Structures are given as structure tokens and as C-alpha cells.
């Protein structure tokens, strides 16, 4: 392989560029600074020609260099003579030049001024909020139709969703809430041992799990599990125009896709939470019986005495609300997904983030309301 070379040779009416050697973009490109200076020194009326008799092979790297030099030449009104180029290169260059330039298609890369950007962002946020309210309204109406028995959905889909959001989540919910119960018991045990009141570990674990932690942990697990799945499912359906296909059949995608998901998750969440509360108490019991020398019966009696039906009902109500929030965030992010594969990933991420934010905010509101009402 010969080294690629390009040099400028003066001639009476301008300049000849002599290229030689083997040009391969994957190997190396020649130094062309001198040639560029020579071309830039040409003036109007001069001719730029080529001599490629010693050029062995050439590729796009050569063509790109030719284009770059000719762009400089064109700025100075230099005439270009392609006759010295290899036949194939000449054809490719004319192919590239013949294609119409869609200058109107070109994007402006200029950054708009700060005021304009703030304005745009505000308008975006307003219309985003607007669409969120519309989505909420559509879903509510759709659930209303569902309750009246006029919802359009497939029963099999609904049962499948119920299975995925219910039985399918038992494993992970068991693990997380059992460990959470055990952790609460550990934390409580260390403090309560100082007062010799270790028996109250049962109260601590039972009340914490029933009132808040059971619902909260289940909700966070489900946000990662079902919320993300809903966004990805609906998002990829949107990308494949499957939602458009539903609309053209006269079926509202909200009826067909969103309502069953909201329904499935909001009915399964309280059940999962009830289960999580029991698993948490079991986790606490394990720590209490092995580390604190409490008997299982004592622990259970203490827990039963500490918990009121109101505590559990409150927890289950919170779970219902969290379930609705997760399903709504997941479906909403899926429905507003863009048209590409990466948009589906973005939708899933956004779904998890927005449902966790919604869950935590709701938990804060609940804490305050329950306190004020004295529940």
C-alpha cells in the first residue's frame, strides 16, 4: 500500500491537484493543509483541475476532501474542472450535487433567547396540565361507562391484567414486606430494650405496617413493576399505531386499554397490601421470637390488641388510592409516548418517577388529613 498524497501544482490558468497512492478512510488520510492554502489563494477566473494518474484506489475520504476544497474554491469564484478525476468519483460527485438541497428542511440550531425559552416552557407546562386533566376526565368517564356495563374491553385482557397485578406480584411483595417487618422490629427492639418494653415491638410493627408502610412499600414495588409495564405496553402500541387502529374501529383506547388497567391495579392493590401487612407482622414476629425471647402467642396477642379495624381500613384505603395513581401515571405516560423505540424507554422511566412522586405526595396528604381527623 502506498501512502496517500495530495499536492498542488501550479499551472498558467490556476492549479492542478495531484492525488496519488492508496486512499482508505480506515487506514490514514494525507496531510492537506498546504493544498488548502493553495486553493484559498486562487482568485476569480482561475481553474481548479485534477491529475489522478497515480491514484491507485480512492473512497469517500477522497470525495469528501474534494468537496471540501471545492467549497473553498466556489467561495472565490474559481472554476472547477472534473475531467481529471476517475470516472466513478466524477459520477458520485455529480450524483451528490444533483440532489436538490432542501434548505427549507434544514433545522435552525440557534438557541432562542432566554425569555422565549421560559415562555415556551411555561406554555408547554400549561398545555401539559391541560392534557393531564383531559386524560383524567376521559378515564373517569370511561370508568363510569364501565360501571354501567357499557365499557368496551375484552374480559380476557382484564383477567390477565388482574393476574399480573395480583398473583404475579405476590413473590416480590412477600419478600419486601417480610424484610420490612423484620427491619422495623430490629429498629424498635434496640430502642425499646432500654426501657425493658420489648413487648411493644409488636405494637410498633403492627401499627406501622397496617397504617402506612404496608401500603407504601407495596405501592413502590407496584410502581416499578406494573406502572413501568403499563407505560411500555401502551407506548409500544402507540409506536406500532395499534392505538390508531383501535380509534379507527371506533373503540376508545381509554376504554380498551386504560380503564381495565386502572381497575385491575386498584382492586389488586388493597388485597396485596392486606397480604403485605400480614407478611410484615410475620417478619416482626421472627425477629421478636428469635432475638427478644417473646413467644409467638404473646406477640400475636399483643399485635391483635394494638391494631384496630380502623388502622387496617385506613391502610387499605390508601392502597386503593395509590393503585389508581400508579395505573393513571403508567397509562398516561404510555399514551403520550413519542414515535420511536427510545421514547418507549423514556415513557417507562417517566411512569416510575411520576408514580413514585404521586405516591409520596399522597402519603404526605394522608398523614396530615388522618392527623387532623384524628383517625
Amino acid at each position, binding site marked *: 500500500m502506498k501512502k496517500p498524497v495530495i499536492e498542488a501544482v501550479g499551472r498558467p490558468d490556476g492549479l492542478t491537484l495531484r492525488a496519488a497512492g492508496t486512499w482508505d478512510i*480506515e487506514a490514514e488520510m494525507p496531510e492537506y493543509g498546504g493544498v488548502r492554502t493553495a486553493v484559498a489563494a486562487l482568485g476569480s477566473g482561475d481553474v481548479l483541475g485534477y491529475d489522478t494518474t497515480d491514484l491507485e484506489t480512492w473512497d469517500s475520504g477522497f470525495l469528501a476532501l474534494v468537496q471540501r476544497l471545492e467549497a473553498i474554491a466556489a467561495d472565490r469564484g474559481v472554476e472547477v474542472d472534473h475531467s481529471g478525476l476517475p470516472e*466513478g468519483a466524477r459520477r*458520485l460527485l455529480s450524483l451528490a*450535487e444533483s*440532489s436538490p438541497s432542501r434548505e427549507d428542511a434544514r433545522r435552525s440550531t440557534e438557541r432562542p433567547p432566554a425569555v422565549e425559552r421560559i415562555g415556551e416552557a411555561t406554555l408547554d407546562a400549561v398545555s401539559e396540565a391541560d392534557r393531564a386533566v383531559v386524560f383524567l376526565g376521559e378515564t373517569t368517564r370511561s370508568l363510569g361507562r364501565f360501571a354501567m356495563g357499557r365499557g368496551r374491553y375484552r374480559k380476557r385482557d382484564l383477567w390477565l391484567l388482574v393476574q399480573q397485578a395480583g398473583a404475579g406480584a405476590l413473590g416480590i411483595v412477600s419478600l419486601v414486606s417480610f424484610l420490612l417487618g423484620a427491619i422495623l422490629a430490629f429498629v424498635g427492639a434496640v430502642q425499646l430494650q432500654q426501657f425493658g418494653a420489648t413487648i411493644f415491638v409488636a405494637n410498633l410493627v403492627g401499627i406501622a405496617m397496617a397504617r402506612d408502610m404496608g401500603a407504601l412499600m407495596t405501592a413502590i414495588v407496584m410502581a416499578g413493576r406494573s406502572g413501568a409495564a403499563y407505560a411500555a405496553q401502551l407506548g409500544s402500541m402507540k409506536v406500532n399505531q395499534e392505538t390508531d387502529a383501535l380509534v379507527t374501529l371506533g373503540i376508545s383506547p381509554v376504554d380498551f386499554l386504560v380503564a381495565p388497567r386502572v381497575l385491575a391495579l386498584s382492586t389488586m392493590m388493597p388485597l396485596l397490601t392486606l397480604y403485605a401487612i400480614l407478611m410484615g407482622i410475620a417478619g416482626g414476629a421472627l425477629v421478636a421470637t428469635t432475638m427478644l425471647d417473646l413467644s409467638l402467642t404473646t406477640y400475636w396477642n399483643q399485635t391483635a390488641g394494638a391494631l384496630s379495624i380502623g388502622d387496617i381500613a385506613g391502610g387499605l384505603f390508601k392502597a386503593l388510592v395509590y393503585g389508581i395513581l400508579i395505573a393513571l401515571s403508567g397509562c398516561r405516560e404510555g399514551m403520550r409516548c413519542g414515535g420511536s423505540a*427510545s421514547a418507549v424507554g423514556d415513557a417507562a422511566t417517566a411512569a416510575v418517577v411520576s408514580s413514585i412522586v404521586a405516591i409520596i405526595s399522597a402519603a404526605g396528604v394522608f398523614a396530615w388529613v388522618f392527623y387532623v381527623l384524628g383517625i
Partner: protein
Amino acid sequence: MTTSCHAPTMVAGDRAHIEVCDLTMAFGDFVLQRDLSFSIPRGSVFVIMGGSGCGKSTLLRHILGLLEPAAGSVLLDGRQISGLEPEARESIMRRFGVLYQSGALWSSMTLAENISLPLEEYTDLRPAEIREIAALKMAMVGLRGFEDYYPSEVSGGMQKRAGLARAIALDPEILCIDEPSAGLDPISSKRLDDLILELRDSMDTTVVMVTHELPSIYAIGTDSIFLDAETRTMIASGPPVWLRDNCENPTVRNFMTRGEGENG
């Protein structure tokens, strides 16, 4: 009655760019095609024809070395493609450019970035030079000005052309094309054909094409084979026009005349 017909070989063996020898393609026990033997001459536009589901795209994947042959071999310049070490494979893959059926552009990158990626991976060029080459390739396929668009923002035909620009980014010796005209209107499809021919003529590329678009086949195909789903082997080979005029096999005749020659 299945009589196979093969045009007399017009290519001297040493001009063969790719050779397929007694290739059998199978998924487990299911044999898709057996005993395929043909050679693809350098600089030809080689068409792989056949009805749906007969294994055309699978054959293309064997030629690219993406699938292991159940028996037989695929040779590129006399060297076996299958069963290579990763490094040797990579250097062979760089000699291929592939245009996939639906473009297969990376949707999170702009068109220019799609074309730049192979250049960034395989060359030491400076970013400015890569941008220039990408712009040149975009101009060649008639997409000047669309550098900053995302694949989802342009039409199907433009995605195909951008896919072609990506396939030729590294000036490949062999351009493999899966269904170039699928989903394109006749005019766009003709322009794509012209473009492929122009690229072949200017860069002396060998083109291997899977298609069942008859106008394209006759317009640009210089050589072809016909795979049959029923007998599971190739039942015809030769220049498409020669096959249309000389082949007696009813399956091939039907295909090449869109069923109009059935009674004639």
C-alpha cells in the same frame, strides 16, 4: 413436474466474489433449503428470488455470516465466512454494507448520526471530517438538508434511502439489500434502483438483493437464483431476463410473469 433450469455459467470462476457451496439451511430439524450452490460474480447485481417464506432472507443472513450453515459453506474471495474468530469476523463484516428491510435506523439518533456511527467506530477521522462524509452520503441518496431529522420524522422512502446511506458509509465491497422496494411507491422504488445501479457502477460494488419486485428484478438484476419453498432447493439460476424467456419450470414461469403465463 419440477424441471429445474440453469443458465450456462457465464462467469469465470476467478471472478466469483462470493461462492456458496452445497449450502443447507436448517433450524433444528426443519430444513429450509438444501444443496444450494451458486457463485456471485464481482460487480454484479445478484437477485435472490422466491415466494414468501422460502428462505430468501435467511440465505442473505447466511451470506452475511450471521447464521451458521447446517452443511456446506459460504466463501468470500475463497475464504470461508462461517465459524470465524470474532476479530476475523469483524474485518469481514466491514466489507459488507447491509440495508435492512425496514431501514433499521437507530431511532434515538438523527439521520446524520446514524451514518456517522460506522465511521466513528472504524476510522480515525476527525469529527468535522466524519460530518462531511456523512453529509456527502446523505447528498448521494438525495437527503441533503435532512441531517438533523430523526428517523421517525421522515417518510418510509426517506428512511430506506438513509439506510442505504448508512450501508455505504464505509464504502463496502458488497452491498446486501433486503427488500429494497417494500413499501415504496413505483417512482421511489425506481429511483432507489437507479441509485443502487449508480453506486455499483461508480464504486464497483457487488450487490446482493432479496426482492420479489419484478420491475426491479428485470431492470437491474444481472444474475439471479430462484428458491422454491416446496422442493426446498434452488430450481433456477441465471440472468432474470434469460429465465423469463427460457425457463420452462411452471413455478418460475408463474413468478416471473405474475401468473399470466400460466396457460401460455
